[in-house]
């Protein structure tokens, strides 16, 4: 195979406002090569794809710098249409298919072969009739190329998700002169067998000369198909290596490894010795995209227990399952008492409080004031901030107490706002997160479940949020279970860190374990629980 360049990205940089998301990114794909692009959430993968495809969002936010060459020509894509003309096909994470149409209609959509008829002779080409026979033949050919035996005239409705993914691929390869296929997390929604046949198809296509740019954070898949691997982190290319020379654990390490700040000294839980406050046995959680499969662990009183792992491996499912927000099964014992699952109220009463990763969706009432966001859950769940209404047997909220508490919290957490009455929608991400923290503290947790506490917030706020969590743990003895995709953060905060892989705990490590060991666990290798 000649080393003919299909795609060459040279020094591409992109800022959203003042926020650099891509910095001098370069990579190239040869003909017939499968190039894997890996990186954690927020590493800049999607932005790079948007640039490659000329998505309008890029131009609306001020364009980018750098050059893109496709098949030896400098490309200036103004829209996805231009990119397609140049021979780039895209398989999206969310399907771009019409459910009511048949397979063939979907595959040939907007590129239908037509033949002239009576009206079109008068009114022009737009009104030519479809050549349905030819459509069927073309589609059959495309489907055969990817070994799919589904009937081309079946409607898409009711087909399994896996089929749809393949049809999406069929549509791309049906385009003549397709030279590069871009796949954005194509296996995220597929079952294992479907995923492996997809990978087989990719290899097959590569042999026939179609290159692929394969975006994923599932390293085992990447290692199965890719010829070359590029790791993207914080908008920069960390390294590009041929697969032969790469080791899975090194790649995993490169994806997450940031040079670490101070490490927390490991040791048995300080306040309560070795007594377990939370025991989880055989927990399975049905959280889409973050399934947890039969996980057992125990958290010691007074410790900070970390849960890490790559996205999609179930680390977020644990806290959500414990709180009863997603269907869960198993046994959870908190402070000696079993907590019934799937009942948020029971979890709250047992003293579990969740600081959700979905700040705007689950964590806040966006149109309510700061003080109400902080106090309302405690009024409902803890019967705090209420007072008797005169001599009547009715309790109502105590506005004065709420205001006072909110003002305390605002100064404690340094929430930047115009006052306790400001609606949280108007706050920045970091300050919103501080309100969430204040809300959680107010609930007086025994065990605080913290999910992605620093996602999408600025460095100053990060520091403050983490410090408050540490303070709560050290001064009030609150046990913390912290889930984060930033390994450095976990290592600076936690006493022990469980790494999830494929819905299971791959290993429980001490924060000062070597990077390689964390990398290995994240990639699904090694690591027996040293607990």
């Amino acid at each position, binding site marked *: 195979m000649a080393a003919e360049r299909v795609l060459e990205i040279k020094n591409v940089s992109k800022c959203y406002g003042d926020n650099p998301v891509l910095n001098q990114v370069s990579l190239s794909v040869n003909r017939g090569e499968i190039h894997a692009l890996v990186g954690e959430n927020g590493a800049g993968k999607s932005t790079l794809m948007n640039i490659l495809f000329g998505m309008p969002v890029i131009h609306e936010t001020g364009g980018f710098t750098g050059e893109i060459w496709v098949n030896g020509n400098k490309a200036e894509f103004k829209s996805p249409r231009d990119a397609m003309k140049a021979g780039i096909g895209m398989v999206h994470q969310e399907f771009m298919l019409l459910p009511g149409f048949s397979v063939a209609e979907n595959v040939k959509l907007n590129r239908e072969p037509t033949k002239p008829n009576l009206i079109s002779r008068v009114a022009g080409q737009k009104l030519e009739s479809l050549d349905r026979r030819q459509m069927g033949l073309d589609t059959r050919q495309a489907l055969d190329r990817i070994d799919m035996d589904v009937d081309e005239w079946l409607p898409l409705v009711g087909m399994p998700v896996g089929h749809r993914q393949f049809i999406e691929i069929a549509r791309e390869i049906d385009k003549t002169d397709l030279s590069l296929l871009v796949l954005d997390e194509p296996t995220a929604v597929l079952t294992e067998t479907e995923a492996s046949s997809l990978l087989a198809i990719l290899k097959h296509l590569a042999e026939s000369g179609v290159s692929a740019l394969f975006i994923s954070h599932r390293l085992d898949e990447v290692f199965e198909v890719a010829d070359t691997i590029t790791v993207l982190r914080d908008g920069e290319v960390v390294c590009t290596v041929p697969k032969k020379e790469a080791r899975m654990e090194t790649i995993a390490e490169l994806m997450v490894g940031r040079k670490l700040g101070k490490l927390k000294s490991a040791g048995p839980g300080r306040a309560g010795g070795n007594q377990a406050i939370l025991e989880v046995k055989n927990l399975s959680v049905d959280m889409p995209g973050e399934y947890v499969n039969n996980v057992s662990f125990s958290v010691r009183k007074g410790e900070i227990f970390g849960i890490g792992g790559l996205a999609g491996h179930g680390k977020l499912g644990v806290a959500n399952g414990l709180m009863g927000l997603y269907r869960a099964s198993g046994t959870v014992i908190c402070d000696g008492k079993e907590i019934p699952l799937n009942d*948020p109220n029971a979890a709250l009463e047992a003293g579990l409080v969740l600081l959700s990763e979905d700040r705007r969706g689950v964590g806040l009432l966006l149109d309510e004031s700061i003080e109400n966001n902080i106090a309302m859950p405690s009024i409902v769940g803890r019967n705090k901030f209420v007072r008797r209404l005169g001599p009547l047997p009715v309790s109502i909220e105590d506005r004065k107490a709420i205001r006072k508490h909110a003002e305390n919290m605002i100064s404690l957490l340094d929430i930047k706002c115009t006052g306790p009455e400001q609606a949280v929608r108007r706050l920045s991400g970091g300050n919103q997160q501080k309100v969430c923290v204040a809300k959680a503290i107010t609930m007086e947790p025994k065990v605080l479940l913290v999910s992605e506490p620093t996602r999408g917030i600025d460095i100053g706020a990060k520091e403050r949020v983490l410090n408050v969590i540490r303070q709560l743990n050290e001064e009030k003895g609150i046990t913390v279970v912290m889930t984060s995709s930033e390994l450095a953060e976990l290592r600076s905060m936690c006493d022990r860190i469980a790494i999830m892989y494929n819905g299971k705990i791959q290993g429980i490590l001490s924060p000062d374990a070597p990077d390689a060991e964390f990398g290995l666990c994240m990639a699904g290798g090694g690591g027996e629980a040293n607990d």
Partner: protein
Amino acid sequence: MIDSLKQLVKAVGLPRLTIVLFLVVLLVIGAVNRLPISMLLGNSLVRIGMNGIMVLAMVPSVQSGAGLNFGLSIGIIAGLLGMLVVMEFKIGGLLGLALALLIAAVLGVASGYVYGLILNRVRGQEMMIGTYVGFSIVSAMCMFWIMAPFKNPEMIWVISGKGLRTTLPVSDSMAQILDKLWGFSIFGMKVPTGLLLAFALACLLLGLFNRTRLGISMRIAGANPTFAMSCGIDVDKMRILGTVLSTALGAMGMVVYCQSLGLVQLYTAPLMMAFPAVAAVLLGGASARKATVWNAVLGTMLFQTLLTIALPVTRSVIEGDISEVAKTIISNGMILYALTRKEGDG
């Protein structure tokens, strides 16, 4: 000066300010044309009191997340039944009113519960479904009114000897009983004290309820269901609670309305009654996702004053009766405006 003006516009909202200005213009035109302004204002007060509780009924429904209660006709029919039972047994006076309110409330709670169960199955389309549930119930009740076992000869058709008449006068001892309670005149303006107090009491109670734990739970459920779930609140139950409260308030509001009007109107009369109530609360600054007692009070005052004053004034300027047309245009226009605008503004 300009800043403070801007702040005023922001606090009150442009639509409300426009209407207030419009009202002032109308009053000036009316005064110039020598219309009895004090009488008009007195009439407005009566209409505010008559309709207020039904507008207030929209508030818990919106707060619990079930949207504007377009199925208010269900509560209205419960209220009609309360009136009818009292009239059948010829119970008059304050006792009659109290009984009618009680029956209306009980029927409102029961029917509101069932209606709430329905609404929980059609999340996201409550308002559309509610409208048609309301229409269907009104139609179904048309049959009931014909077959209902009422025996009081003053209420049933004379010729066939059965079936309720379309319009029934409320007995003298009950008609306007609230309006007259502690009523007085000032500058030729009649003030229906009891009626207004009843509205005020309803507002006060709902306002207090909103500040209890249960009320707060209900508001959280409406504002963000997933947030509510993570607080251990049963969202479905809260939506039912909101619908029950709304329907019961609608029922009691109808009793208050009937006694003031002095008539009980059956058959298709309740068909469109939800719409003015919806329009009023929207006019007061509420949206399909957010509503306060204050929105209901302000909205009722603006909407009813506008209707009462606009008609005689326009009639004094242009010939002909446009009362129904104006009411329809204003109320539907307001609903259209409020439901198409973005959240948070207006």
